[in-house]
């Protein structure tokens, strides 16, 4: 970080993407990557609160959670898992092509990632609407015919809170991707300067990781006690 001034002076003036208070692009890139990682840590703790609540109530009401999870659609959840992991791959490849400076492929993979993300959200909408029709939205209209409806309500509450927050992150991610596609199309990114792509990639993968945990915890908890 402590670059000597000589090198600083050089790279400064030339690159249009360099902000005034940084010495050089390297420093700027380092800062933005670090910033994103720290942001992701706050995200871990943010979701962590919900995971904590989930753990406590699942350990209190294992049967109820298992039964309630039967109301979730494992097929749709599974498809969404595949969709999301695939989108992570395409995102990783997008970062790759930004690093090697292949602009066409960069745009291609960003678009693919966006499409997969939207697919995920679409399926989520389908799932939510099913829940809505089944009266499984927690609150005054909650209807649940199994035993212990109140504890089941906590399950659905956590389901909606966790997947809802996750979906919100997906929506934000889709917005970011749109920006990236626009700027990539404008030719803003190059092997020297592509940290926006890289940093957004980190975000996207994080959202993927959250789902990697949500899927077994919410959809698969009661699979084995089918009945």
């Amino acid at each position: 970080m402590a670059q000597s001034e000589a090198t600083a002076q050089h790279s400064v003036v030339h690159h249009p993407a360099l902000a005034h208070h940084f010495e050089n692009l390297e420093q700027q890139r380092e800062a933005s990557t670090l910033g994103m990682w720290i942001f992701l840590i706050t995200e871990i703790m943010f979701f962590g609160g919900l995971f904590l609540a989930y753990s406590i109530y699942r350990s209190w009401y294992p049967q109820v959670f298992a039964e309630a999870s039967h109301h979730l659609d494992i097929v749709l959840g599974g498809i969404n898992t595949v969709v999301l992991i695939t989108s992570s791959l395409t995102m990783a490849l997008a970062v790759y092509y930004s690093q090697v400076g292949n602009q066409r492929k960069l745009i291609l993979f960003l678009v693919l990632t966006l499409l997969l993300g939207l697919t995920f959200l679409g399926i989520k909408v389908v799932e939510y609407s099913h829940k809505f029709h089944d009266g499984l939205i927690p609150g005054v209209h909650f209807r649940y015919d199994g035993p212990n409806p109140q504890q089941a309500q906590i399950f659905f509450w956590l389901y909606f809170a966790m997947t809802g927050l996750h979906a919100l992150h997906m929506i934000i991610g889709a917005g970011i991707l749109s920006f990236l596609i626009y700027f990539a199309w404008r030719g803003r990114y190059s092997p020297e300067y592509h940290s926006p792509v890289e940093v957004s990639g980190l975000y996207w993968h994080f959202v993927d990781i959250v789902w990697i945990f949500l899927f077994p915890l919410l959809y698969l908890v009661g699979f084995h006690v089918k009945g």
Partner: protein
Amino acid sequence: MSTAVIHTPAEGAAEPRTTYLNAGHTLKSWLLTLDHKRIGILYLLGVSFFFLIGGIYATLIRLELLTPQGDLVTAQTYNKLFTQHGIMMTFFFLIPSIPAVFGNFLLPIMIGAKDVAFPRLNLLSWYIYMTGALFASYAMFAGGVDTGWTFYPPYSTNYANTYVIATGLGIFIVGFSSILTGLNFIVTIHTMRAPGMTWYRLPLFVWAQYATSLIQVLGTPVLAITLLLVALERTVGVGIFDPRLGGDPVLFQHLFWFYSHPAVYIMVLPAMGVVSEIIATFSRKPIFGYKFVAFSSLAIAVFGFLVWGHHMFTSSQSVYAGMIFSLISYAVAIPSAIKVFNWTATMYRGSISYDSPMLYAMGFIGLFLIGGLTGLFLAALGLDVHVHDTYFVVAHFHYVMVGGSLLAYLGAMHYWWPKMTGRLYPEGWARFAALVVFVGFNLTFFPQFILGYLGMPRRYYTYVPEFQLLHVLSSVGASILAVGLILPAIYLLWSLKRGPIAPADPWMATGLEWRTSSPPPPENFERTPVVTWNAYEFRSKEETEVIGPMGKPDVSERK
């Protein structure tokens, strides 16, 4: 400032300089500024306003408690008073105070950077702060909130019919401002240090800020999600904290204190950083055991996350969990002890002046000491059962938060005022005010220890008559304290127009912030400084003059 003025830089008042203050005069140039120094000033305005509001609430609380009957306001109003007092003072004043005002202003200068890593994010965090404040103020004016600053359910979720959601949302929002500030500082400290500014050359204020930022980044999100759950529970009512529907109200307490215990270190670590700076400058000696003080900040930040359960010793939490939390609470006291001893040792064989910042710093050590040591009473399981939720706790946390953090904040205000405004304040008044604050403070809060041990519960607006005498003492003290706080407000404002022009380094201090002019230019330094010395290497007057302000050609190398 008798002993203070060291030298008036030759370039001083003569040539008109561009400073961050006169670099633009329009409102827009302030509201859209990306300059960390201006953002610091913006925060100063916000934070002062909420301190004033919180202080007004405190005044009303103390007035009500003059008599045991509860005759000034209604019960409901009183509950709103202490709730809003607590919320304003912690979330809107003390947590942002030192980091957002002095951290913003000084941190980049201290490490020799032009700005923080993400200036836009920095401005954004001020707007987020103001938005959160707007929500909380709306709640306050629309009718207030009466849950206590701790928002325990099921009262907050099912019973309170006040503006819980709006307030909670306000705190949720300022939380993000706190997170972004922390994020910004961590990245800044990692990536923006000037050439030669190694970790062990950093001023201790920067170390303290770094530790604080860790807590902000790791803790605040949990508070955010918790408040979100409370708000949703209130609107939808699904039972996540409601025992009747299968939830657990104690889970809320875990989540809340997971943030709010570390948050008390958000409030005190920056204050400790300030005190390290002041003690060094006014003793003209490097801080004794620099590395111990530096790492104790980190230790406090880490251990601080392991002790939250000490707020729940009587909550029906497991007795065994209580023991774990108590044990670790004692571990977290050790780094604080290390700091106190090192500060004291720094004064040994120093050259100690009694300028007002130093008076505040010495006051801090004494009062934080008492506050911290009474924390040990509370962390002692069997004893806390008796004093939990009594005025003993109230006294404890005012000793650390007012006697500790607020005094350090005032010390910082005086210490860096010349740097920030380019003006000197009347030192005589400043010393007098410091004295008044110290006396008033002790009179206000010391009787509360006794009250608490006698069994006076907190959040009581009417109480049994035998407690009256001590309450009266406390209220008298509070009015003295108020005078002591209003004085600086007056003379500091006065000095803005009338104070003598401040030199670059009025204290003969060592930090990089004193190596640039007062007030600093927009880019902080005319040239990126190159650091070749350790923190707190005091030099003679002549030597300092040779080094001169950083960034003047060819003098940045030490002779």
